[in-house]
């Protein structure tokens, strides 16, 4: 059994080691720094109250909490449908923005328009700290499904991007 001081020391260590990772998980869902930081604080408050006894994989456990809290914060999606998603071929200030940056921005919008079951595996796969098994644990799906969904998401994004590029 840990003393209260030891508990807080361990918690402090966990904060210093994993706060930024937890932030990135929340940011992947929310795409907003302030909201993501709120989620991180909420995650560690919960850890503080409940402790980490019996937790095998602390980063994955923290990521799971952060992911669920971030999901709770997301409002209803803005009715974007990847099938009907059409990017404007000419931005008002397109001439002043670098071509490359435009493409990346479009990709972000495409990612945001992906269905959740494809978007979250793809976003979490971008985090180096998480492997497919851990992502599956967070999302509650098998590891093989994680890989399949990531592959499908990438395919859809590339197709959409290719279409917009040919329209240009």
């Amino acid at each position, binding site marked *: 059994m840990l003393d209260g001081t030891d508990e*807080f020391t361990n918690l402090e260590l966990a904060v210093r080691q994993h706060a*930024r990772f937890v932030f990135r998980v929340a940011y992947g869902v929310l795409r907003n*720094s302030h909201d993501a*930081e709120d989620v991180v604080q909420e995650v*560690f408050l919960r850890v*503080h109250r409940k402790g980490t006894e019996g937790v095998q994989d602390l980063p994955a456990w923290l990521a799971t909490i952060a992911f669920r809290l971030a999901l709770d914060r997301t409002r209803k999606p803005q009715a974007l449908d990847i099938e009907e998603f059409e990017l404007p071929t000419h931005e008002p200030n397109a001439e002043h923005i670098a071509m490359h940056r435009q493409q990346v921005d479009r990709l972000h919008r495409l990612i945001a328009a992906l269905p959740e079951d494809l978007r979250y595996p793809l976003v979490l796969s*971008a985090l180096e700290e998480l492997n497919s098994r851990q992502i599956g644990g967070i999302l509650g799906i098998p590891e093989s499904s994680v890989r399949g969904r990531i592959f499908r998401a990438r395919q859809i*994004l*590339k197709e959409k991007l*290719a279409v917009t590029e040919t329209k240009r």
Partner: protein
Amino acid sequence: MNHDEHLDHLLDEALSEYRDAEPLAGIESRILARLQLSEPSRRPFVLRWAIALACAAAIAAAIWFGSVRRTPESVSQTKIAATPSVAQAPIPRPAPVGAASGAKVAEFRRPAKPHAVVAAPVATVAHAVPSVFPLPSPLTAQEQAFLASVQGEPDSARLAAAADDALVIAKIEIKPLERSGTPSGDNP
């Protein structure tokens, strides 16, 4: 670089934003500060146990004192002490002239206080069986003084009691007034 590789590269770059997302500086400090504020009453383990043990000891002591005070003898004594007698009851005095109305109210309420004070012990020992029934009322001041004098000088008291028994009061005879034939010089 073919088109597919180019798209993969773009996709990886877009996803790198998630990987490289950084919070504002000092997020760890802010989290720790909030954690410390969240539970200010969180005490060290030893201190928590010490407080728990002290509370347990206090409760045990209270139970022990309670059991000691509930013996039958003490119960009857408690009842005697708790029963207000006429001699001990405070006599309400008239309030001094010019006293505040609040003082008058307090004066009138005073007799009720003994009942309120003794109500708790009587209630707590209500289930105990008294050793003497009916309960003797406490001695009055005169009785207590007499008891003290008897205990101090038992022989003289006994003799005084015997003297009281032997005392015979002679019958008082009152003779009727005699009337003389000569009128007094005072009466005309």
